[in-house]
């Protein structure tokens, strides 16, 4: 991720920077630890006096660093997934390029409906995201002409889920959404196979990892569909990121880091001022709206210099943000398991 940000900054500096001034990337290690992260952020804010901090990853780290940022009017960009993060009173000083649960649940439901599913059942692990995911997926399935016929939340430390599977099968679903983690989804997949369930099984990629696939007989996982947030692999910005980074398939995180650096540079250029508040007030002016679509910071800087309006479309997605800093849309990668291996079904 650091390389991706550095590559964008180097490219911008090589093209002459903004108003003749160069960008400098200062790196501190948050050690994925809230305490270390707060110390590092304090240094960046008080000593280095940066206008923006890019790259907090763990939700606990972002939750600890965010108050320092909004109090000192420093802009923060993050990939942390917890829904609570954008609900903090950050006054606009925070954006997140990772889809939150609400968006994920909606996208999953849209996909399930697009597979022709009429009756979906959702089995969720007991976790903070379970209830909101069930509610949002139910809502979207209904809008798309499908139906959530039922759902349950199960206890995580069980050695069998036969009775839960019975409850689900009673509703006669043609798709079961397995909304849990690897240890429990493994058991559910076994129990569904034993119960001779023939419908669609849908789960997050992190619950059906390569290790899970190795630990289960191939017939048990055959046909399972998995989903994960994806970079926008069809976008020109993605092609540019590939070239810039010299790697064949930058992942979702590398593309998000590419977009942070681009958004911050373009906001500063638009505002003609390098402060956190200037970035906050201008980030939506360069990332959404009716301006000319641009796919890299350098391209955007040229148009801004000519006084034109721009709309940055990123390598991770369209980079359009809600009022609280969440992305409005992004792509997801759907894989189908066959012969114990995932193969790409589509990115949508």
């Amino acid at each position, binding site marked *: 991720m650091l390389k991706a940000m550095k590559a964008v900054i180097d490219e911008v500096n090589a093209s002459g920077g903004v108003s003749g001034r160069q960008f400098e990337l200062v790196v501190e290690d948050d050690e994925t630890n809230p305490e270390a992260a707060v110390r590092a952020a304090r240094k960046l804010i008080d000593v280095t006096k940066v206008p923006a901090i890019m790259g907090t990853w763990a939700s606990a780290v972002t939750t600890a660093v965010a108050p320092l940022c909004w109090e000192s009017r420093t802009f923060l960009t993050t990939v942390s997934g917890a829904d609570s993060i954008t609900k903090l009173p950050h006054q606009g000083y925070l954006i997140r390029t990772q889809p939150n649960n609400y968006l994920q649940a909606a996208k999953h439901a849209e996909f399930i409906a697009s597979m022709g599913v009429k009756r979906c059942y959702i089995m969720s692990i007991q976790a903070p995201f379970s209830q909101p995911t069930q509610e949002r997926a139910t809502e979207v399935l209904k809008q798309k002409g499908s139906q959530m016929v039922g759902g349950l939340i199960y206890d995580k*430390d069980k*050695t069998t889920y*036969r*009775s839960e599977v019975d409850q689900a099968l009673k509703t006669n679903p043609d798709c079961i959404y397995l909304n849990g983690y690897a240890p429990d989804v493994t058991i559910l997949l076994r129990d569904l196979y034993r119960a001779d369930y023939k419908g669609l099984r849908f789960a997050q990629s992190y619950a059906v990892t390569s290790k899970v696939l190795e630990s*289960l007989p191939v017939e048990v996982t055959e046909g399972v569909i998995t989903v994960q947030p994806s970079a926008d692999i069809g976008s020109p910005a993605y092609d540019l990121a590939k070239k810039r980074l010299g790697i064949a398939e930058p992942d979702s995180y590398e593309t998000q880091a590419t977009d942070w650096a681009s958004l911050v540079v373009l906001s500063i250029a638009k505002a003609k001022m390098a402060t956190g508040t200037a970035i906050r007030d201008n980030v939506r002016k360069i990332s959404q709206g009716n301006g000319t679509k641009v796919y890299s910071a350098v391209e955007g800087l040229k148009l801004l210099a000519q006084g034109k309006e721009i709309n940055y479309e990123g390598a991770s997605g369209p980079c359009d943000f809600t009022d609280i800093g969440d992305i409005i849309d992004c792509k997801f990668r759907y894989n189908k398991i066959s012969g114990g291996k995932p193969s790409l079904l589509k990115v949508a």
Partner: protein
Amino acid sequence: MPPLLAEIAQLVVNGVMAGTILAVPAIGLTAIYAVLRFPNFALASHATIGAFAGYIANVKLGLPILPSVGLAFLVAGAVGVATDEVVLKQFRPAGFITTAIASIALTIALENIVRFAFGNELRGYALPIERDWRFGSIRVGPQQVQNLAVAAAAMVMLFSFLAFTRTGKAMRAVADNPMLASIKGINADMISRLVNFVGMGLAGLGGMLIGLDTTIDPLTGFRSILSVFAAAVVGGLGSIPGAVVGALTVGVGEELCLLFLSPDYRSAVGFVAILLVLTLRPRGILGQRAY
């Protein structure tokens, strides 16, 4: 069969299957308690060690399931004797609370040794997964029936050992009255080694049975220890038949609660059962006589 009755029957079947597997390590826990008078929480890591020993036998050495189950018993039993000799024995003079806490520390240490050796990922046995048999509306898994048979056989062997052999009788004597047993010349040290071997062996066997139905990782034992403990306490801590009754009560209770509770409250049932039994009958369902 009317739908509600069919559902209850299915839940009872599921509960008996889960309860029988739970009974195996619960017997281990209660047997160790009967003789050594402390709840040995290190049972959790021994269940994991048994599951991994069985995994090595089955997947790495290519042995069939039954010999692998036997090996799970032997390895967990041997580790149980060794850890007791080296670690827990030194704590026993300090009282049962100290020893119980030491056993928690021990279980965390052993679990991390397994993690160091095998990593955190999930592993499965080399075992085909078969579709369930259907009897009318009732569904039963062949693997579960096999596990049930292994668990039942282990229990029958243990009960025969306690009832008919000299050593088994000596073990019961120590559990009943250690002072009297020592006057009669029964070697208490030998008996404590033996009970550790059998108890931890059963834990290892139970760990492997759980793994056969699911997958294993270093937390396999830890995840089920609370239910095992609940089963032993409900049946009467120290009573071996009580552990079986307690395990079946907890197993069937956890399933039947699904009739009117959401599945995420399932684990709570074991603990409500502990509270109820300890309030109404503090010595557990079958009391605390070892046998």
